[in-house]
């Protein structure tokens, strides 16, 4: 719910309640005032009539001006003044008419007469209706004004808030510049902006330093690795070495290669995680696949694998070129590496997905751990256990859906674009 709607709703409820309470109160007060007014008028009329009788000694024959209709009843003796509200029924089937009646006695030459002056009361229903209309009108007016004011208010006062929100939405951890908030003269917004600024700055700086740390760390690793490697190689060229020494050195070189590869792969994973490969472009995946298969052909033949591929031509996806290379290397490499001698590979590419199937022994590890770092099958002792973690990371980066199943002796990996 938008802030403005929430505020407006509260206001509306408050208005409604105030209106109802006000209406009820008004009803009673008005009713009381009107009743008093009626009473007063009845007394005035009584006085006028009494004056008339006193002056003329008899009752007026016609209705007097400024006098409501009155009823005359002869009476034998004096009756005290009586004021009452009553209901006058002219017909038992109809609702009675609410009236206020004053009864009093006057003495004429003919004797006593009781006079009753009646005044129809304002009907409660009419009063309620009138009040309802008045208050409804007031409500509509109030709500209209409120909405208008709120709208204006949110446009002007809340503007910096919404701008800050929009700005925050565009914030990327990788961005090189700090966020620049629009100046506001409202203290709360200033505090908000100040805090948001320091928060995003901190996040951004931390990220930058982490980024440079990974790069620097990798650099610091690579140089000593290079020194060790080149010395070992130089040592290997020594003509005085016996065969066993050469084998030892070669094994050192090999292990060093693995260490270096490990370092590079971890760095690559971090870089992908940090979204440092942002330059994605449309790449013809069909061609890239053909090229890669061509490159791996010797390996495929070496293991006597039967390759069947159903690759639709000119399938393009948006991806960083280098990352696609890493992706295909790992997917196809695994399909060959963990295949049986004389096994099969099926590759299928269409607009929606890439499916790579290969025959092989079932995994000895739980499937859900397959895409985690340093998780490797017991049959692959010389693997780094980072290949599929890389694949997963790349797929996540581009929101591709990666899944694996083992079915009837087939490992099936699919990437849904």
């Amino acid at each position: 719910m938008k802030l403005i709607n929430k505020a407006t709703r509260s206001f509306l409820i408050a208005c409604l309640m105030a209106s109802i309470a006000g209406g009820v109160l008004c009803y009673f007060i008005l009713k009381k005032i009107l009743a008093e007014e009626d009473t007063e008028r009845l007394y005035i009329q009584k006085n006028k009539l009494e004056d008339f009788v006193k002056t003329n000694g008899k009752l007026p024959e016609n209705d007097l001006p400024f006098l409501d209709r009155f009823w005359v009843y002869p009476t034998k003796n004096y009756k005290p003044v009586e004021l009452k509200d009553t209901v006058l029924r002219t017909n038992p089937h109809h609702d009675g008419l609410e009236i206020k009646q004053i009864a009093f006695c006057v003495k004429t030459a003919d004797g006593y007469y009781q006079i009753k002056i009646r005044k129809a009361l304002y009907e409660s229903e009419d009063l309620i209706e009138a009040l309802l209309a008045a208050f409804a009108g007031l409500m509509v007016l109030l709500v209209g004004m409120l909405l208008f004011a709120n709208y204006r208010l949110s446009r002007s006062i809340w503007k910096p808030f919404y701008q800050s929100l929009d700005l925050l939405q565009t914030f990327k951890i990788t961005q090189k510049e700090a966020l620049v908030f629009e100046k506001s003269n409202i203290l709360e917004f200033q505090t908000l902006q100040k805090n948001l600024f320091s928060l995003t700055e901190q996040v951004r700086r931390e990220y930058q330093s982490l980024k440079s740390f990974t790069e620097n760390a990798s650099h610091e690793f690579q140089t000593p690795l290079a020194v060790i490697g080149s010395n070992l190689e130089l040592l290997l060229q020594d003509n005085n070495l016996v065969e066993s020494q050469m084998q030892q050195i070669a094994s050192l070189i090999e292990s060093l290669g693995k260490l270096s590869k490990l370092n590079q792969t971890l760095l690559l994973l971090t870089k992908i995680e940090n979204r440092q490969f942002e330059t994605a472009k449309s790449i013809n995946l069909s061609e890239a696949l053909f090229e890669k298969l061509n490159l791996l052909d010797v390996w495929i033949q070496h293991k006597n694998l039967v390759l069947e591929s159903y690759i639709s031509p000119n399938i393009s996806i948006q991806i960083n070129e280098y990352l696609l290379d890493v992706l295909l290397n790992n997917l196809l490499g695994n399909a060959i590496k963990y295949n049986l001698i004389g096994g099969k590979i099926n590759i299928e590419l269409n607009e929606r997905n890439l499916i790579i199937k290969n025959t092989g022994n079932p995994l000895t590890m739980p499937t859900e751990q397959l895409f985690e770092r340093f998780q490797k099958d017991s049959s692959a002792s010389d693997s780094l256990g980072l290949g599929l973690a890389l694949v997963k990371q790349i797929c996540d980066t581009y929101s591709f859906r990666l899944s694996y199943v083992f079915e009837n002796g087939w490992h099936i990996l699919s990437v849904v674009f």
Partner: protein
Amino acid sequence: MKILLIEDEKALAITIQKFLLDESYVCEWVSNLPDAEDKIGVYEYDCVLVDIMLPNGSGLSIVEQLKKQQSSAGIIIISAKNALDDKIKGLDLGADDYLTKPFHLTELNSRVKSVLRRRQFGGNREIIFGEIKILPDSKEVWVGTKNIILTRKEYDLLMYFVANSNRVLPKSSISEHLYGDEIDQSDTFDFLYSHIKNLRKKLIEASCPDYIQTLYGVGYKFSLT
């Protein structure tokens, strides 16, 4: 052939220098930017190997300076920074090649040779090794009067062998040269053997002596004897 090595890591520089000296190159080494600038300002080199990250600045400025001088020297950038930006920038500035640390000395050697070969215009552009004659421009390989048809990988392999003849080549160095560092090296050892077997077969069929010597558990050596 005169080579200038600009590298701040002394231990690495010494091994590179020693290796290149063994290859009968004249190799001079400087460890910082001002020295390097002095050297290239005074002497002519056939090839300059430059590290990007130097104590007093970026090695890329050397590349710029060489290009400004219209030097004919081949330039190979050596860097521990496998940052794509640096690579593209370096090559854009006019460097001939880019090597990421750590690298095999034999790989460096083969790159240096390739750069030098490309820089020698009008010269005799063929490589003779024993009975084998290679024409790098057309990528043709001849044994006597017989033209040997090699696959791309086999040709790369032969070139690598010839560039590093009489050297002990560990398997990892060869497979890295052929397949880059993208595929796990341990995986490529398998079919490296296939490549070598095929190459050897093709050469022997053309009645070329077997120059490829297998060193068990180590790698290979390509030599006349």
